[in-house]
């Protein structure tokens, strides 16, 4: 699986992100791989279990930044929504958003793992 194929799988056109990475597929590829090792989502899950909204916010915020960097747009949108809900003190809205986010995140990770195993 190439980097482009990976992006296709998650439904994103990689043109923009590549441009931001100075057109370097190598560089983007290198950092995309790091996403797998990142513990932010684990932190988010833990915070969700404890309903520790402050840390939910912090992790979601970080995840938003990370996924934004790589144009993992679905993950980005959902983590952005969680951040937004937190700021609106609308904590009840967060769990369903998280469930959806988890599905998107798992999907991204799944393809990303495939991509990594081949590159």
């Amino acid at each position, binding site marked *: 699986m190439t980097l482009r194929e990976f992006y296709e799988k998650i439904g994103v056109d990689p043109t923009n992100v590549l441009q931001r*990475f100075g057109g370097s597929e190598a560089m983007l590829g290198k*950092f995309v791989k790091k996403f797998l090792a*990142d513990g932010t989502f684990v932190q988010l899950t833990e915070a969700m279990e404890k309903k520790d909204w402050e840390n939910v916010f912090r992790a979601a915020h970080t995840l938003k930044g990370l996924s934004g*960097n790589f144009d993992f747009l679905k993950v980005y949108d959902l983590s952005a929504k969680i951040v937004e809900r937190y700021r609106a003190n609308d904590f009840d809205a967060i769990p369903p958003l998280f469930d959806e986010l988890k599905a998107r995140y798992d999907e991204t990770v799944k393809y990303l793992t495939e991509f990594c195993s081949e590159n």
Partner: protein
Amino acid sequence: MKKNDKKRKQTILIVDDSEINRSLLADMLGSDFTILEAEDGTQAVAIMQQEGSGLDLVLLDIVMPKMDGFEVLAVMNRNGWIKDIPVIMISSETASSCIERAYEFGVTDFINRPFDVWIVRRRVMNTLMLSGKHKKLVGMVTDQIFEREKMSNLMITILSHIVEFRNGESGMHVLHIRTISELLLKSLVSKTDKYNLTPSDISLISTASALHDIGKIGIPDHILNKPGKFTPEEYEIMKTHSEIGASMLNDLDFIKDEKLVKYAHEICRHHHERYDGNGYPDKLKGEEIPISAQVVSLADVYDALTSTRVYKPPFKHEKALEMIMNGECGQFNPLLLECINDVKDKLVAELQVSSPGKIAFGDMRKVTDEMLQKDELSTSARTLTLLETERIKTRFFAELSHEIQFEYVSEPPMLMISDFGERKLGLDEITMNPLDDEKVKKTFSEKTLKAFADIIRKTTPENYTFNMEMPMPLGGEQRWTRVSGRALFSGEPLVRTGFIGKIIDISSEKAVINELRHKATHDPLTLLYNNATAKELITRRLIENPKRDYVMLYLDLDYFKTINDTYGHNFGNDVLRHISDKLRAALRKDDIIARVGGDEFIAFFECHKTQDATIKRIFDSLIEPFRNLPLSVSIGAAQTTDGARDYESLYNNADRAMYEAKRGGKQGVRYYDATVTEEFPTVTVIDEPNKSENAALSFLSMKELTAFLRETRKVHNCVHVFDATAMTKFAADKNGELGKTDENCEFFGAGRDSVTERALMTKGRVCDMAFRGGDIYQSTALYVECGGKPYVLEVVEPLNTEVLSGVCDTPEIIAMIDRRGGKQYMDVSANAYNNNYYEEQLKNRTDFYNVAAIRLDVDKENSEQRISEAADTIYSCVRGIDALVRRKENEFLLVMKNVGEERFDDVIKTTEAALKKTGAKVRVGSCRALGKLEILVEKAEKNIGKKR
């Protein structure tokens, strides 16, 4: 600014809690920078604290754990770092309030997520460039001000010396030269850059110009201040001033490399050179002459022309210029002539200003001060760089000297330790909130931290240093360290903002001190405390714990002397060590155990419910046989509950209880109580120094004792033996055999204040005398041991001829009497009792009824000698028990008892005759009656010279 700036990679600190973000940014920036990373705000602040101006840029995330981006900015503002370290915020925030707030905090720019390589690089580069320029400008301004300030101070000092010394007129001259030179130089650089003059050079040359004539110091006074024209010879001498000045400066070895001094040298030597080569001393031509000297020589000429000189009036400004332009004062660089022409208007104006009271130096200084006060310069890059260098230096030296350095700032709470300390202590180089930090808590005990905090809290802006010793784990080993440092204060009013200091390992030093202290406080044999230390410790414990109750045991090993004598001192020492081991084992670590005497110990511990059991246990453990030798110990116990709350009382009570225990047959425990509360008499230990001598008196068996008694009986009539164990007294017969005591000697028995009792307590020899039944006795009691048991030998001397005269044991008796009445009872030259004795001991007595008053008529010359001889004569006529008192200067009383009237008269007659025979003039009065001695004496004195 440093010239190697370009070589140095710029350092960028990336602060972001996401590792991916940090490495992304680092990658995007490429290898042109040194990248430092921080995971959160606290780490970021710590790095800033450490790196100072070493940081060129900070990329700062906003949302982070522990300390967020805004808090970091707040710290940077408080510490003034924001002025020197540009910050770019990284954020996906687009809320304008957030951006506004960040700008208010002084951030330079924003980078938005998602990151774009090109934008990140561009923004970073722009920011660095701007800040670099800013730093450079600040540096330049600071450098210049610094240079001027430093140099003009130096100059003013030098000049004020030279100028005031010699040449009155030059005072103004140097100021003018300076002003003119500066004007000329400024004009010159605006026309050409071929001389490469920086503003700093201009300042230096102008300043150095003041030194152009310093060589005149070497010109003789009569030439220098000559009113008329110089002779050719004088002129030649005068001309040497330029060389003299130059060599003076050349001789300034340590500063001759200073740029200022180099310029001054050029100026001194060459300010009389002329452009056409017609000057002196080196006849340099054109541009061979240093530009500094060219400028100053022109200024010199102009000022000389326009000023009054001893040999001429001043020329007007226009006239002077005309003369210069016409070459009347030698040829000058045409470019400089152009310059002077350009500035001619300014020249007049400025020279009016450069007069005393309105000195250009002063103005410059004011400007500098103003600039220095502006906060932009307060922590200029230059200062920070200097600080950084200092920091590197001190770290290096600290490492060399094996010191751990530390620094603590309270805002935010952060502890920094040097690299060396980091390794030694196992702490991180930087610890945020050290008081809550697990590692710190693990390294230092709570007690240590508290003690340290207390010490810090005691510091004030006046007393800011601190010193303490504390244990610390260094390199995994508990060591003693000395921590010294100072607290830092700042602000108005002053508040403590942190502290700095160092930690030195003093374990070896401490070990020596501890050893010495241990030696001083412990008994070397048993390693228990010594008496003095026990007293100190117990006293302190009683004071510090006023509500707790304690018990003190006084332990005395019975028959120790015998053990020593029988088995040798080494064995005796082993016994003492054994006893102390037993005591240590029976008591807790905090209890105080001491060896207070040869075989005496005290133990001190808090009262508790089972203390009787404890004491019993101690007792039982102590009487266990040691190497098959049965031991015996007497223990006295005293408690604070008895009302004795100080060391002395407890000690005395326990001591007394111990004697009660001994009296009770030894080997026992006795609590102090009402039955032992009676005061013991003051013990008169007369011959303590001889104790060791008497210590030899110990007998293995009754047989040995009997043999000794037989010998004693040969010398002394009345010898008794008191068996302290059985509380029984025996008299020794001629063969030394002990039989029942006779009544006569009973009063020396076992009464509390008897010599026997006192000898028993002091384990020594006690000597006393007594008047009993109309007779005088001296009794000596001697403590001995027989078969390990205590006995007292009593030797009673009735009618001892030497008792009253005090010949026997004189020093002892005098000492004893001294202690009793505080007065001397003996008259030394007459070897008789003195009037003190009469007044205090004799005059109220009723048991003497024969008194003779003997009055001598003695020449003043040798009177004491005569008295002494008379006393000897009297002694030769009387019995040993008769008392002779020197009552007055030349009067004796002879007091006799147990003597018949006839015998008494006989003695008086004989004495009088004997005295007269020696040539003494003597009169005697006597009285024989019943009644108070005082009255008898009165009568006897009245009877002096009367016939009986």
